[in-house]
């Protein structure tokens, strides 16, 4: 049974479409991220769930109840904002207790719940401080505690970490996920940071221009992108092109080398130009002195244009037949990476070739 259903949502600002045909079904306790570039409608969709925007079309059903036209203060939805939005005139305790106070919870019980929340965000000592006396990371933890203290049915976070340092961001990210899982809160998380979305979510909704491009697990989004947009937006993507050797075949000619794809290009004529995509980590560089060993793999010669040693990962920029490619390999202590100007052969599985946009 779906806990939160967003059904064919649409929002216009004047005549401009902010969100269109947005469908999503979330189960209880699920963590879903909205991922997309600026202006893709992530915030607008989330604000419709919160009740701050009225959809021009479609319905929102929460736990079996149609809440499409319910006021925000009646929805039991918790929100965390990019700018923290703590009440400046209230202490940390009073901020966290604000929603509880409005729900007419007895004082003693509020105190207990606030203590519990302070423990959860590891800020037991700082309850009497005012927001202005806290760091950004601490303020955002308080904002999270304030949002979840009244036990909302849905938690909404709109780029909660983008005002913070990279280091704090990663730590707080894990903390948010841990708290969300411990309490089993159904959560929507808006971000334009793909790493954030991938690492946190049960499922990711990739959006572009107000539309859903794909909904799926991070694994599915990354490995089987449904559209070019998704493929390009999530992770790095190399684009290669070649000419089809025979009508409806599965082999391309790139320069003087043949490359096999996983699927046959049905309906495509011989000599037509075909594009395909490869993830940087799907490519393994070998020295040219190694003979092409595995007949199941494709091999392409490439010139090395730059090598970046990142520790565990070595990132190379190479050039194949005038197409720039990015190649990631793991560091190997027994084999130093190639040098700039070297020629290497790149090995890749035909199954790793993504043909999301046949030209």
């Amino acid at each position, binding site marked *: 049974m779906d806990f939160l259903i967003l059904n064919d949502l649409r929002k216009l600002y004047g005549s401009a479409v902010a969100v269109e045909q947005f469908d999503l079904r979330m189960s209880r306790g699920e963590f879903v991220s909205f991922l997309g570039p600026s202006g893709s409608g992530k915030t607008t969709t989330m604000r419709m769930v919160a009740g*701050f925007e009225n959809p021009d079309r479609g319905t929102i059903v929460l736990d079996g109840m149609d809440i499409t036209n319910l006021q925000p203060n009646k929805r039991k939805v918790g929100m965390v904002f990019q700018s923290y939005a703590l009440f400046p005139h209230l202490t940390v305790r009073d901020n966290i207790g604000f929603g509880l106070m*409005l729900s007419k919870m007895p004082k003693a019980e*509020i105190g207990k719940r606030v203590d519990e929340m302070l423990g959860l965000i590891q800020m037991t000592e700082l309850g009497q401080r005012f927001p202005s006396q806290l760091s950004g990371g601490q303020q955002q933890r308080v904002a999270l505690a304030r949002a979840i203290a009244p036990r909302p049915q849905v938690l909404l976070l709109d780029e909660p970490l983008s005002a913070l340092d990279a280091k704090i961001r990663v730590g707080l990210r894990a903390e948010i996920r841990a708290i969300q899982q411990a309490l089993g809160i159904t959560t929507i998380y808006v971000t334009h940071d793909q790493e954030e979305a991938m690492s946190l979510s049960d499922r990711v909704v990739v959006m572009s221009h107000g539309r859903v491009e794909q909904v799926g697990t991070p694994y599915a989004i990354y490995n089987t992108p449904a559209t070019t947009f998704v493929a390009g937006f999530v992770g790095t993507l190399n684009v290669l092109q070649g000419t089809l050797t025979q009508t409806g075949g599965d082999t391309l000619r790139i320069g003087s080398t043949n490359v096999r794809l996983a699927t046959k290009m049905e309906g495509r004529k011989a000599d037509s130009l075909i594009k395909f995509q490869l993830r940087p980590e799907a490519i393994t560089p070998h020295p040219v002195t190694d003979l092409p060993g595995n007949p199941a793999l494709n091999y392409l010669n490439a010139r090395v244009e730059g090598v970046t040693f990142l520790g565990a990962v070595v990132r190379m920029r190479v050039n194949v037949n005038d197409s720039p490619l990015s190649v990631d390999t793991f560091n190997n202590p027994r084999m130093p990476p190639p040098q700039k100007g070297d020629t290497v052969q790149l090995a890749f599985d035909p199954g790793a070739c993504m043909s999301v946009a046949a030209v």
Partner: protein
Amino acid sequence: MSSKNNPITYWVAVAIVTICALYLIVPLLTQFDFSLRMKRDVLSLDAYVSVFTTKPNAVDPPKFYTSLLFSAGMAVLTIAFSLLVIVPTTFWVNYRLPKFKPVMDLFSVMPFAIPGIVLAFGYLRTYTSPPLALTNTDAGTAFLLVGGYTVGVMPYVYRSVDTGLRAIDIRTLTEAARSLGAGWATVIWKVIMPNLRAAVISASLITFAVAVGEYTLANFLFPDERAFGSYIAAIGRNRIFEPAALTIISYLLVWACVLAVQRIGRGSTQTQTAVIR
């Protein structure tokens, strides 16, 4: 730096400040001096005693107290009423109807363009005959007075509330409160108002000063000279030394007000305590 190094600029600055100070202080000093000369050839506080003790008749307390109390009461009511009306309105215009902002800005300065006497006549004409005969009762007349003052101080109150609102992120604060279950009244009085304290205090102070000293409207609506403004005017017409004493007393009252407000303002930040323990 440069003004210190350049003696001419420095002395010009000192001269300007001095002239301004004298312009303010000299009349005050002469008033003060004059107020002490009720008794021939000696300095005395007789004028002050007269202000504080002169009774209108055998039974009523001195007019100084009754009129001051009356006007202070009207001023407090005006503060409450204008905040009640202007804070939610300004909030709403900022939050939901930013398109109406220019209209509001224009509207808020209109009281400057309408002389008090016009307003007073307008009120009398509109509200003395049925169906809106407010002036039949004291309470009705007082309500009319408070309404008039509210309009009169609207430019000040609107300005300072608007400035205060712009200093805080009302949109996200409002949405945070709403998502936590707050209705509009809670948003305005528990979230917005507490963060407008400085603006509210300065607006209240101006309102108080304006309402306590106001003459035209008060005198029209209460021709029995019940208001402080009418009392001051009557004293000015009928007495010689008491008006001077009254001027000094008014100054001291205003200063006391300013100091008190500053104390309250500062004190409450430091002693602001947690509601939830």
